[in-house]
């Protein structure tokens, strides 16, 4: 075999050597350069409709100096954290039941079913929740029909609705990552623990749960990072009471056309995501999921 490899060297044109270049150049031009440009713009300013290209930290000072902008950031972090926690609480039992309580030949079907609505349009899914939560929607209809309430509840257009929309999406994602982890845990571990006298509760808390944490960590990381950067769900379901950071960024773009400010806010968002990654990094063993 070594001879074959030898024979292949020294060709005039070796395709496999250069094939990586188009993707690499594309990523450099359309991903790395735009991020660099944004970083540069975040130090510029838009004053009276004109671009002022002197470097300054003015946008960042403005961001951290205005309560409503800092609130946008803290609101986003809160919503992303609540979303992540609730999604784990809902997804873990589901993944556990599919992995350990459903016969093996049905598991694949159960998993596919559990993530099928993942593929409805992201925009449309938020709209569907609006239908369900609206004043004349099916929840109010059912509650009034059952005589539990007389007047329809206002359930859409608030933080709870945003979190609900998020949890619906990310519970599916977490079910997938946790399930993938659970089915890899060797059954013999649990049997050995039981043989040594552990109760089912002890087996769960001392064997299964610790071994499934990588799957939880990967799913939780993806949930937090995607949720904190999402504009669509809070914009459709959240109403106007509070702004999340991506909404505040889009306001700078669409209303004020202030790209330097929007860039500074985006860079701040990227820093939050990077810090999250560093916190999670030691738990993130992607190859286990």
């Amino acid at each position: 075999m070594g001879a074959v490899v030898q024979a292949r060297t020294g060709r005039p044109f070796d395709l496999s050597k250069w094939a990586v270049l188009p993707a690499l150049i594309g990523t450099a031009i359309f991903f790395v350069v735009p991020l660099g440009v944004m970083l540069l713009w975040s130090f510029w300013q838009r004053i009276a409709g004109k671009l002022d290209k002197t470097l300054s930290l003015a946008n960042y000072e403005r961001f951290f100096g205005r309560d409503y902008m800092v609130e946008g950031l803290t609101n986003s972090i809160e919503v992303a954290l609540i979303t992540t926690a609730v999604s784990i609480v809902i997804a873990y039992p589901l993944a556990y039941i599919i992995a350990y309580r459903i016969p093996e030949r049905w598991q694949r079907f159960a998993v596919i079913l559990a993530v099928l609505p993942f593929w409805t349009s992201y925009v449309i899914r938020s709209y569907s929740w609006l239908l369900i939560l609206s004043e004349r929607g099916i929840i109010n209809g059912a509650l009034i029909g059952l005589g539990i309430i007389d007047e329809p509840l206002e359930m859409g257009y608030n933080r709870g609705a945003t979190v609900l929309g998020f949890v619906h999406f990310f519970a599916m994602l977490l079910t997938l990552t946790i399930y993938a982890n659970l089915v890899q845990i060797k059954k013999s571990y649990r049997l050995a623990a039981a043989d040594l006298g552990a109760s089912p509760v002890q087996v769960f808390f001392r064997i299964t749960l610790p071994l499934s944490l990588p799957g939880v960590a990967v799913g939780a990381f993806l949930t937090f990072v995607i949720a904190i950067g999402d504009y669509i769900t809070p914009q459709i379901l959240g109403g106007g009471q509070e702004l999340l950071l991506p909404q505040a960024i889009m306001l700078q773009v669409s209303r004020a056309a202030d790209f330097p400010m929007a860039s500074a806010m985006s860079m701040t968002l990227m820093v939050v995501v990077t810090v999250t990654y560093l916190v999670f990094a030691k738990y993130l063993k992607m190859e286990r999921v």
Partner: protein
Amino acid sequence: MSTLRHLPAMAYLILAYVFIFLPVVVLVLFSFQDGLLPVPPFEGPSLKWYARLIDNSRLVEALGNSVLVALVSALTATILGFLAAYSLARREIFLAGAVRYLLMAPLTVSYLIIGMGLVITFSMIGIPKSLFAIGIGHVVINLPLCFAIVYSQFGEHQRNIERAAHDLGASDFQALVLITIPMLQPALLASFCLAATLSWDEYIIAFLLSRFDVTLPVIIFEMMSAGLNPVLNAAGTVVFAISIVFVLLAMVLATGRKRSHDDAIG
């Protein structure tokens, strides 16, 4: 284990599936609503909102645009991803680890930030807002996935067959086209279908990079600000149906790949 012990687990399973499917069922059901609002009581079934959908030339045009952008950007991302995977799987590339990391990096940045970086950069270098610009954005977000899918399917058994082809006098290019691509065909199709689905569904980059020609999610989002409307249900149902076709296709192809792989080694 007794049936009784299974009861709480099964109850939870059913509740979870109800939660997961509730929005889809409501969306699809009320797309057949006969009344003016997509809320109970359900009257119908009626296809009038689908008729309204077909009559809406902006929606139909946007649907065409979405299909075009999805197919072209998915094809581009798959080809670039395949070439990069081929290179990294077959050669000792200089700084291979860094290259892999760079190719996967766009996955870690939110679509909003990628989109905004492209808006600013395009305005500086003079690429106008257009379907072409949206397509570039979608290649950027899908390339990491396409690369990862194809890269994970490059294995030693294919390499041996490629070597055999080389021994028999095939050039690099011949081995690539006659051996490597056919063997990777399921992974390539799966990657194409996934990329097409994600592009087809993408809103924020398409919104930021479009002016006159818009894609379907952009129109749907715009219509949503006018309130609940059964036409949106009909449009959403159509979008969902097309996505599911693509996803199932990708899944069937990926499974087929795995099976033939198992056959090959087993």
